[in-house]
């Protein structure tokens, strides 16, 4: 279970998170939605302490990760897998080496064992036989899938997805959503998805939370969230300009 308690974060005088409280249920997918630039990615990066809050606490299994020492922090990060918005594959390596990278750096796995595991992960994301290519040779969707293979290769307990379908066409976006749902069922990880691709993202989410004006405006199981009468939720779902969310 991950618990975010009263998290505040500012950048150069601009307050992005103004007291976020949110729980993430173990073994389920929770999606954080919200307008572009509302701080979803900032919140996501707090969950594995890539960013530290100015105030507030983040608990992973009752351990406050904001107070961990560096060595403990690295150990805790080993429990996470992250799919970044642009996949963040290392340019200088092939896709195979990118996926194998955490295994080479963090385990003592033998080369044949490692090869098998990497090839399995590449198969699972539909990139069989593409391991020899470099990130620059891949399309956006293929990069995301390679990033997902890398995020899953260490069998993480928690996987963070930062806008996994941004920049993809609707068909590919659905494909990535299905891939996330399929891999979550196969591996049973706790998933946290940051997205504004609605309503497609609702299909894979167990819970949905909306971040607006620096706080979690509503967090509910998906069906309840969709039926919510909260004007912020309704404005966001319907994509209306008029409403409590100030757009322009």
């Amino acid at each position, binding site marked *: 279970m991950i618990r975010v308690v009263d998290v505040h974060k500012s950048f150069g005088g601009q307050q992005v998170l103004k007291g976020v409280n949110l729980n993430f249920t173990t073994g389920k997918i929770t999606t954080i939605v919200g307008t572009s630039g509302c701080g979803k990615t900032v919140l996501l990066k707090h969950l594995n302490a*890539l960013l530290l809050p100015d105030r507030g606490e983040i608990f992973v299994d009752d351990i406050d990760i904001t107070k961990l020492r560096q060595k403990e922090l690295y150990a805790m990060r080993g429990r996470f897998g992250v799919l*970044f918005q642009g996949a*963040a*594959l290392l*340019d200088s390596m092939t896709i195979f080496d990118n996926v194998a990278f*955490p295994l080479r*750096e963090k385990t003592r796995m033998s080369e044949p064992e490692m090869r098998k595991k990497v090839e399995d992960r590449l198969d699972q994301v539909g990139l069989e036989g593409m391991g020899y290519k470099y990130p620059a040779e891949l399309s956006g969707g293929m990069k995301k899938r390679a990033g997902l293979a890398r995020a899953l290769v260490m069998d993480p307990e928690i996987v963070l997805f930062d806008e996994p379908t941004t920049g993809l066409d609707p068909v590919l976006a659905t494909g990535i959503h299905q891939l996330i749902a399929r891999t979550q069922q196969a591996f049973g990880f706790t998933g946290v998805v940051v997205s504004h691709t609605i309503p497609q993202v609702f299909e894979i989410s167990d819970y949905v939370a909306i971040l607006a004006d620096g706080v979690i405006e509503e967090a509910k199981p998906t069906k309840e969230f969709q039926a919510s009468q909260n004007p912020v939720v309704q404005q966001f779902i319907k994509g209306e300009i008029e409403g409590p969310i100030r757009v322009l």
Partner: protein
Amino acid sequence: MLSLLTHTGRFTLRQLSEMGRMFLFLLSAIFLAFRPPAKIRLIIHHIKTIGVDSLSVVLLSGFFTGMVMGFQGYYSLRKFNAESWLGSAAALGLLRELGPVLSAFMVTGRTGSAMAAELGTMRATEQIDALYSMAINPIKYLVSPRIIASLIAMPLLTAIFDVVGIYGAYLVGVGLLGVSSGSYFSGMESSVVFNDVYSGFMKSLSFGLIITWVCCYKGFHAPPMATGVSQATTESVVLSFVLILVWDYFLTSVML
């Protein structure tokens, strides 16, 4: 008046805290360089990019610097009827000063800027965040191997610059201006002592450290946008040049 004082105070505090961050970055990179596992493969890769890939530009600049020294040295020494000391003047100038400084400038332009741009791009495309998220320390993975590689490559490049420069001066002095070949080399042999070579070696070692430190720091902390990368690259080159010259002054005053 109060506003001016406030601005000056803020500027000074910002500069001091930036210097502190840079120093901590260097300490962290050096500390992590000694922690296992050693990144031998990465170190060899960076010796290639810092050393082998800079070889052509170092050879060319060394040769032409030597030839210019041949002309300038001959012109100056002729005024005192001391042309035979051309070899000595060229060797001392190159070994103690021009070799380390100019080869450091070449490496800064050729490799240091590329280092800053590469790390800046990695920051902008979240590759550095990806390393953190995989529980891999990016300073150990990206910076420490470059520092070790530069400490190995830089003295070797300087030595090559010195040798090529000495032969460049020989070509002009002996080949074009008629200085005797024997006096060129005997003058060099009699005046160059171990301390001259040692001083150049120490300079090249410290310049290598300055280049990788500054360029990696600037790239690592580049604002995550295209202009951020270009700004980091420019700043890294300018700051490296300035620090090389300032540190050169201090080392020269101590080791003269």
